[in-house]
């Protein structure tokens, strides 16, 4: 196949990209052997492709990368939580809510004790304190207490023994060991049982033996 210059120029792009068929390639190469003008066109076009294919031919403005990065940093939305992250946060919130509900539940508070005798001591009654009890009531007293009745049945025990038998301290003679605070009434100092209304919530201070 014999081709002229115009056909070479029409085909030069395909030829340089390797897209010309074998017959066309052979024809072009045959033509180039005798045509300096077409050699100049082919070589020049090859140089164009090679030169512009170099990444460094395009100069980038100074500071371009920094400005692009800054634009991204200021324009992109903040980190979005993942599904797992949201699930963890939700579970934590639910646990807090449950803990609060449990903490404020009446099932975990001591009920208000109506009887003054049932109120615990403000401070510990010495375990070996000598006390007396009678058959009249399940109350133990200091010896000589003015409200002891049925003295004929009086027995002397230690405070620890009396409590083990179910006796509670007398609010007269053992007042300093008996205390009922009324946290919800604020101003009330530790008072006597009579100071506390029957429906008042009480904060019970547990007593124990030293």
């Amino acid at each position: 196949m014999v081709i002229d210059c115009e056909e070479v120029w029409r085909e030069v792009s395909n030829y340089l990209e390797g897209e010309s068929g074998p017959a066309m390639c052979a024809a072009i190469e045959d033509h180039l052997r005798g045509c300096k003008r077409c050699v100049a066109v082919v070589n020049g076009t090859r140089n164009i492709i090679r030169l512009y294919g170099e990444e460094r031919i395009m100069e980038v403005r100074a500071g371009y990368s920094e400005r692009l990065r800054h634009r991204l940093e200021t324009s992109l939305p903040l980190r979005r939580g993942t599904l797992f992250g949201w699930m963890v946060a939700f579970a934590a919130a639910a646990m807090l809510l449950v803990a609060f509900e449990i903490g404020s539940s009446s099932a975990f508070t001591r009920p208000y004790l109506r009887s003054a005798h049932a109120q615990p001591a403000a401070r510990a009654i010495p375990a070996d304190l000598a006390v007396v009890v009678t058959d009249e009531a399940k109350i133990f007293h200091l010896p000589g207490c003015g409200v002891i009745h049925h003295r004929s049945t009086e027995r002397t025990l230690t405070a620890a023994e009396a409590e083990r038998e179910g006796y509670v301290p007398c609010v007269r003679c053992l007042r300093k060991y008996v205390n009922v605070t009324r946290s919800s009434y604020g101003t009330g100092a530790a008072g006597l049982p009579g100071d506390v209304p029957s429906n008042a919530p009480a904060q019970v201070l547990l007593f124990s033996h030293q």
Partner: protein
Amino acid sequence: MVSAEARSVDSRAEQLNEEILIRRVREGEHELFYELVRPYERRIYAAALAILRNPSDAEDAAQDAVLKAFKNLRQFRAEARFSTWLIQITVNEARMRRRKDQTAMVDPIVESQDREGNYTPRDFADWREIPSETLERKEIREALARAVASLGEIYRDVFVLRDIEHLSIEETAKALGISTANVKTRLLRARLMLRDLLAPGLGGSWANKLSFAKGNKPW
């Protein structure tokens, strides 16, 4: 000399790294998006500059294109290369800006170049091979940029995508919404026109001013 096999392995590693980055950005690690774009930031700027011919506009277009890429990252499909996808977005952004800017402005050389008939070379200077270090010279880089900027836009767009950004013929056709036959025709003309513009200078001495630098166009 790096073997083709080694280059292939590197390329695959880069692609895997890219896939991981894309997944992590999609999952919320937005700060990693710059790492995804960084290898191509120069190329997207070059594409925008070649189309818009103005460094400031090119930078704005490149930045907007990157943000659009981020917003549309979920639409990116792995069958395409991320670089190709990013460059296509950049080219679309730059062409859209150019259309806006051209509402009252007509490119004086577009009309004469839009005839897609056969192109006849005008200059047959013997263009010897250029040593690679020639590109280190600023005046040569500027001459190359001026030459491509002087092309009519239909040729410039094809040349930028194919010869500067290395998209395939098919990818170029898809990005520009034209047939592959049109891509080949325009590409041939663009290359021949650039050869005509640059051969006198590169074939001779760069100490002499280039013919097109004086405003002389060989077509």
